[in-house]
């Protein structure tokens, strides 16, 4: 536990001092930290998922408070919580099938369960109720999951069944953590390779002799365009400079270095040029649940112009940028965004 605490504090410091560059790196490190927290959490015998959720929530809240602008942190925390709940549910369903199976085989004196898992509807319902219930008065009063009740309904228990039950439980507790950590590893893998996965789809969207408009600079967009260039598509890119940070200059330089014909324009010329553009491709800071996009200033103007000229407006975002709610730019967040 002290080991994890040190890790958490170290990461909190980095977040507060904005030492981590970019949302992908932040998301990856957050996921790795939560993985360590999960593996270090001691889970009780019963209701393991709740304990894991509790510890992840505690750490997650501190992480989000350290850097509210970097929305990827909150997204990753919520994803990990979702993973825990999902793994718990699937384990419960599998365990239910396993318990019924062992019950049936005990009855038939057949150790090797080759039978069809006969799941009684009531048992499954009880299992799913216990694992995914949101906190309510009932769940608070019930500490013990309904596994104790279930075998009574399916068949008369015996010693053998009791043993298989406890064996199931302890293996279940180990299995939950194991499954969750596996899923979090997959999440980390997804986050690390998000640019490559997005860039793979570039060829489907960019054809020959296209004109593409973008604003500011985004690593995802850069890799996307370069992937299309690798596959021998010839196209031209208009980059709007994206004042006041002027990241468009950087992107234009990168594109020219990789051999793409690029034109740098000012932000005010976007409406003038958009009549000659086939597609607008941009990156985003975050994607909201209703499809809205939080992006560098000026993209609203580009989107309106694209709508007027019926130009497709494509936003590239990794999975760590997807918000679960319709984030609104509250005044507190705006104060932090405004430099």
């Amino acid at each position, binding site marked *: 536990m002290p080991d994890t605490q040190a890790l958490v504090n170290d990461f909190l410091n980095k977040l507060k001092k904005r030492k981590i560059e970019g949302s992908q790196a932040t998301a990856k490190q957050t996921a790795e930290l939560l993985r360590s927290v999960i593996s270090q959490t001691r889970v009780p015998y019963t209701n393991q998922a709740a304990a894991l959720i509790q510890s992840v929530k505690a750490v997650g809240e501190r992480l989000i408070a350290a850097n509210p602008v970097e929305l990827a942190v909150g997204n990753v925390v919520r994803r990990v919580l979702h993973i825990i709940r999902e793994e718990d549910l699937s384990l419960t369903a599998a365990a239910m099938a396993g318990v019924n199976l062992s019950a049936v085989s005990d009855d038939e004196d057949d150790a090797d369960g080759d039978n069809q898992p006969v799941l009684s509807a009531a048992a499954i319902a009880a299992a799913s109720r216990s694992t995914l219930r949101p906190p309510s008065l009932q769940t608070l009063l019930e500490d013990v999951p309904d596994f104790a009740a279930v075998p009574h309904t399916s068949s008369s228990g015996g010693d053998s069944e009791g043993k298989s039950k406890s064996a199931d439980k302890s293996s279940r507790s180990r299995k939950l953590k194991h499954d969750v950590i596996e899923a979090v590893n997959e999440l980390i893998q997804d986050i690390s390779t998000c640019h490559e996965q997005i860039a793979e789809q570039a060829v489907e969207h960019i054809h020959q002799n296209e004109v593409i408009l973008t604003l500011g600079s985004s690593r995802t967009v850069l890799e996307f365009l370069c992937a299309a260039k690798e596959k021998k598509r010839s196209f031209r890119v208009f980059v709007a400079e994206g004042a006041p940070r002027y990241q468009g200059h950087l992107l234009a330089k990168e594109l020219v270095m990789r*051999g*793409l014909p690029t*034109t740098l*324009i000012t*932000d005010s010329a976007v409406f003038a*040029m958009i009549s000659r553009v086939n597609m607008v491709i941009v990156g985003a800071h975050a994607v909201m649940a209703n499809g809205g996009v939080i992006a560098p*200033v*000026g993209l609203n*103007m580009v989107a309106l112009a694209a709508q007027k000229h019926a130009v497709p407006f494509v936003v590239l975002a990794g999975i760590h940028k997807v918000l679960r709610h319709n984030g609104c730019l509250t005044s507190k967040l705006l104060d932090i965004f405004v430099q």
Partner: protein
Amino acid sequence: MHPAVYKVGLQYLSGDIWGGNARCIAMFQAFKEAIKDYSTPPEKTLIRDLTARISSYVSFLIECRPLSNSMGNAIKFLKNRIAKLPLVLSESEAKATLMSDVDRFINEKIIIAEKVIVKHAVTKIRDGDVLLTYGASSVVEMILLHAHELGKQFRVVVVDSRPKLEGQLLLRRLVRKGLSCTYTHVNAVSCIMQEVTRVFLGASSVLSNGTVYSRVGTACVAMVAHAFRVPVLVCCEAYKFHERVQLDSICFNELGNPEAISKVHGREDINYLDGFVNQEKLQLLNLVYDATPSDYISMIITDYGMIPPTSVPVIVREYRREHLWS
């Protein structure tokens, strides 16, 4: 080449004189000087020779900086007046007539027209308004200052853009007179448009299909204002109307200096493109004008009154024929 014309040409080139009205007035002052010093060479008629002389001056000015639409109209007027000079006039009388015509044009079409526009436009400003303007239009500046003198309570949002950053000059003049102003970049116009009640824009010229040809970025501001249902009022003198039609901003435009894009004045840290400017794959595009479609314009305020964009060809047809070339 007359020295006055040469001087004006160089002022255009360096950017010391900019803005439709200023350029037009400066050009006419230079032409007046040239006409005053003109003397007909032997064996030539005044009309033909003077017209040829003026054409050569105009070609020089075009070399320095392409003409704006308003200047084109003004030159057409001058050539027309020269051609209509009665043959019986002596040289000095002819020159005097021409110079008084030029004075009359400047006075009627520019100076008094601006006053009339201001008189119409201040009726559209109410107390508590938040007015947005883009760039630095001389007419809009006069409107805002006059409304402030009349005691109306309003505040101004000045939207500016690279690379010319003309809005800063307007901002200084407004703040000096005591108006409360907000200054922002064109990227943030969607954020600020929620508070705005009216948008006042200037124009370099208005075309026959109602399209407003103005500083690049005006179309963006008008589009966002339209999306937020804010009325857009374009203030433009009638001599700037043109019978040509333009569908988008690319068909006809002026290109500015590309170096102005790669360098950001006052921000030495933005030097990513140092040494890259000569790469063949990189093109720096500095457009000067853009065309705002007429659906974004609520009303055009001219010296002939306040008209919808669809009435522009009427003005071009009726008043142009009667007044300019009578």
